[in-house]
Structure formats: C-alpha cells, structure tokens
C-alpha cells in the first residue's frame, strides 16, 4: 500500500530531515511511527500526502508513484488518504456535522451523499449524538474524533495520523486510539505517529522507530524502545 525507496529529504539549505529511508507498509496494517523530536516523523507524513516532495528516492501509494505528482493531481491523492494532523483543526464557526460535511462539499459531492455519509462517519467515531455542537462545546478528544470523522468521509484506504493525541489526557487518548483501531478493523491502513509510550505498548502493533532521519528499528509487535 505504501512503499518508500531510499527516500531522503533535505530542507534547504542543509537540514537533513530524512536520510535514505526505505520501508513498506501493507494494506490493512496498523503501524506506529515513533522517534525523538526532530527525527523526521512529520516530514515523512507530509511527504505521504505530497505536502512535501522527497529530495531523493521514490514514494508509491496504492500503486501510484507520487514522487513527482503534479499539483493538480494532489487533490485526488488527498481524497485517498485521510489525514489527522496536530495543527489541522476544526473550523470554529461550524458544527461537528458541518465540519465533516465541509470535506465532502469541497470535493463537489452531492447533498444526498453528504446527508448519508456524515452521520455514518460521526457514528463510527461515536459522536452521532453531538453532531450539532460547535468545537468549543466538545472535549479535546471529541474534537479530535471529529477530525478523524472528517478524514474518513472519502472512505480512504489509508488513515494518516500525526500525534492525534498530542494534547489529550489518558482517557481522551484511549477514545481516539479506540476509534483508530476500529477504522483499522474495517480494513483501512492506519499510520500513527505518536510519542505516547502507553499507547504503543497497549496497541502491540508494528512499530517503526525513526531517529535522526533514519529507520533504526522496525518490529512486528513492537514496544516503546526509546529512553524517555
């Protein structure tokens, strides 16, 4: 599903964010990416959605080589990958329902499709009862689940989450992780970038550790390995 071959990323002039990273993630996998701050995790995530282009190497997603994807093709890529980023928030002046619907509206989906899909994805994240609340009327975890619901509207084959639980307490974190597990159980590939030791240990899934731009370990059923 995701294939990286010898990918390097240098931010001009000489910030080496990733160095010769090769990895393969299969369909339906749940992969955690961990590593110290500045290791290059976010850079990796941004390259998967063509927000950044690799300096060297190639990236393939679902058989599509996106290494040099054209600007006007990027929207189609984005509809195949659901994204949950730290700094990728909800619109304050829209309700949960409207925030989710927004992602369908901008893709030109019909109203009928929107009326069907939005309650469906809100139900998946367990927020169908709070659909008409505004973000400030929701907890941090609930807000993040709305973000995940929004990432799901195009039925993406891949869900990419960069520290979705970064600012959440344990309870809310567990809710969000449960939603991700559920989505993975439905068949989507989930790539989760996280710092949270407990999350990783509890998940018992594949863990890829990145440090200083390199893959330093890749375990089938990994535990958190880095010193805190």
């Amino acid at each position: 599903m995701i294939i990286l071959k010898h990918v390097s990323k240098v931010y001009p002039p000489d910030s080496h964010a990733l160095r010769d990273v090769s990895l393969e993630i299969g369909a339906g996998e749940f992969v955690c990416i961990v590593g110290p701050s500045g290791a290059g995790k976010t850079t990796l995530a941004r390259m998967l959605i063509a927000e950044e282009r690799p300096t060297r190497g190639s990236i393939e997603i679902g058989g599509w080589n996106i290494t040099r994807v054209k600007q006007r093709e990027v929207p189609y890529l984005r509809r195949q990958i659901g994204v949950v980023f730290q700094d990728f928030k909800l619109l304050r002046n829209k309700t949960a329902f409207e925030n989710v619907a927004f992602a369908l509206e901008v893709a030109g989906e019909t109203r009928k499709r929107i009326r069907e899909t939005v309650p469906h994805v809100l139900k998946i994240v367990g927020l169908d009862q709070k659909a008409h609340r505004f973000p400030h009327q929701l907890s941090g975890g609930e807000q993040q689940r709305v973000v995940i619901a929004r990432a799901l509207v195009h039925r993406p084959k891949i869900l990419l989450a960069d520290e979705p639980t970064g600012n959440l307490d344990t309870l809310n974190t567990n809710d969000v992780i449960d939603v991700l597990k559920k989505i993975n159980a439905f068949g989507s590939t989930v790539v989760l970038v996280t710092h949270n030791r407990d999350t990783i240990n509890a998940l018992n899934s594949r863990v890829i550790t990145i440090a200083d731009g390199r893959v330093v370990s890749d375990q089938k059923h990994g535990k958190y390995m880095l010193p805190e």
Partner: protein
Amino acid sequence: MLFITSTARVISFAWKNLVRNAWIGLATVLVLVLALLSVNVLVGVNAVTSSAIKALEDKVDVSVYFKAGTPQGILDLARSYLASLPQTANVEIVSADEVLGQFLERHRDDQKILDAIKEVETNPFGATMVVKANRTDNYPFLIEALKNPQFSFAIESQTYDDHAVAISRVREIAKSVRYFGLILTAVFILFSVLIVYNAIRVAIYTQREEIGIMRLVGASNAFVRLPLILDAVFLALLALAIVGGLMALGVVFLEPRLKSFFDGADPGLMSFFVANAWYLGVVEGVTLVVLVSMSSWAAAGKYLKK
C-alpha cells in the same frame, strides 16, 4: 452533474464566506471605495481645472481699434483676411455706431461727457474688431498678421500687449496643471492598486485556516480560489456602485457652488461626468475587477501551492 454541483457549491461557498466575513468584507469595500474615490476626485479636479483654464483662455482676445472714419471696405478687408487664417477662431466687428452707443450707455449718468459728445457732432470713435485665436499659442501669429499693410495703417491701437503676459501665464499654468494632474493621477492609481491588493490579501489572510483545511481534505485549487475570487469581484462591484452614487451626489452638490465661484460660467464638472460616466464606469470597473481577481488569485496561492 459534478460540474453543476461544483458550480452551485462554489457560488454557495462564496455567499457563505461573504456573510460569515461580513465585517472583513465591509472593511474591504471601504478601502476599495476610498481608493476609487481618490482617483475619481482627482479626475474631477482635472476636469474642473481644464474647464477653468478653458474659460480663462476664452476670455483672452485681441481688440483692434480702428481710427475714426475708417471706410467699411478696409474693415471688411481686415475681417475677411483674419477670418481666412486657420489660426483664427472668431472675428467680430463692432461698428463705430455701436461703439458710440455702448459709450453713451456706459456714461448715461454723466451729463458732462454726454454734452461733450454732442458738441463733436461726428462720431469720434472708430470701429472695433475683436479677434479670438483657436489656441492661445496662436496670438503672436495673429498679432503679426495684423501688421498687414493693406489695413494696418487704419489701426489706432490694439489691446493685445496688455494681455500678452497674462496669456502666456495662463498658457504656462494650463500646461503644468495638466502635467501635474496626469502625474498625480498616475501616482494615485498606483497607490490605489497597492491598497486594493493589500486589502484583498488581508481579507484572504483571515481565511487561511479554512484554505489549509480545504487543501488537506482534497479540494482542488480552483475550488479554493473561485469562491474567493467571486467574493472579491462582488465586493469590487459593490464598491464601484457606492463610488458611483457618491460621485453623483458630490457632483450635484458641488456644481452650483462651483458655478458661483466661476462667475456663472460652466464649471464643466457635471458635463464632464455626464459625458464620461459610462467610459469611467467601464474602465474603472474592468480595471478593478481584473485587479481584485488577480489579487485574490495571488493571495490565495500563497496558502495553496507547495
């Protein structure tokens, strides 16, 4: 189907944006109005100055006083000769009798003068010829032409020498007023362009979060840009309409006041704007629409491309 849905949605997005960001929109319109007004006021000032200069130039003429008793044939000759010159706009002859009539009229309360005139018995005045050039630059040429020996001997005096300085002053003023008016207008247009571009940039800056989200959920660039451009064009047209109204009010208000300032002569403000309303509206409208479209295209691009 997708196309229709998209078009409808672009319009509905544009509309929602506009309503939700009403304050920013209002501020943008205000800036656009000020920019347009400054240019239009300057255009109006230029129009009034040129008609003021024209009025001044119109007042300039050369009065040629013929000696008393100059035969009609000489007068006709002088008139037709001057009228035949391409530099002449207008020649008029005031006959000796008319000159006398005007003189008596002017002094009808002064018995002494009236008595004196009666005593002379014959008309002591000669005919007067008033010559207007089509352009003030041409007066020196006409003065030269008056030296024609066929009639110059009959000329007693002419007023031009008194006017010469004034005429050249008016000519200089007119020239520099037109020149500086042009430069000032160009500068104002340049500033207005910058102001408009920045106003649009600010308006779009306030929506950067939304733009970022649209991109990440897979909106095409066109879908992000079109509503923004549509909004900008709408605001521009609104500003244009407001400026049109303000200018009309301003002109109606100022015209009579300027008229009294111009001693009842046409200040040329109303006639200028009435004659050029369509032209100005279309030129400014098209310029503004193109300008705001390009501005919002560029400003949105800042948050779009990678």
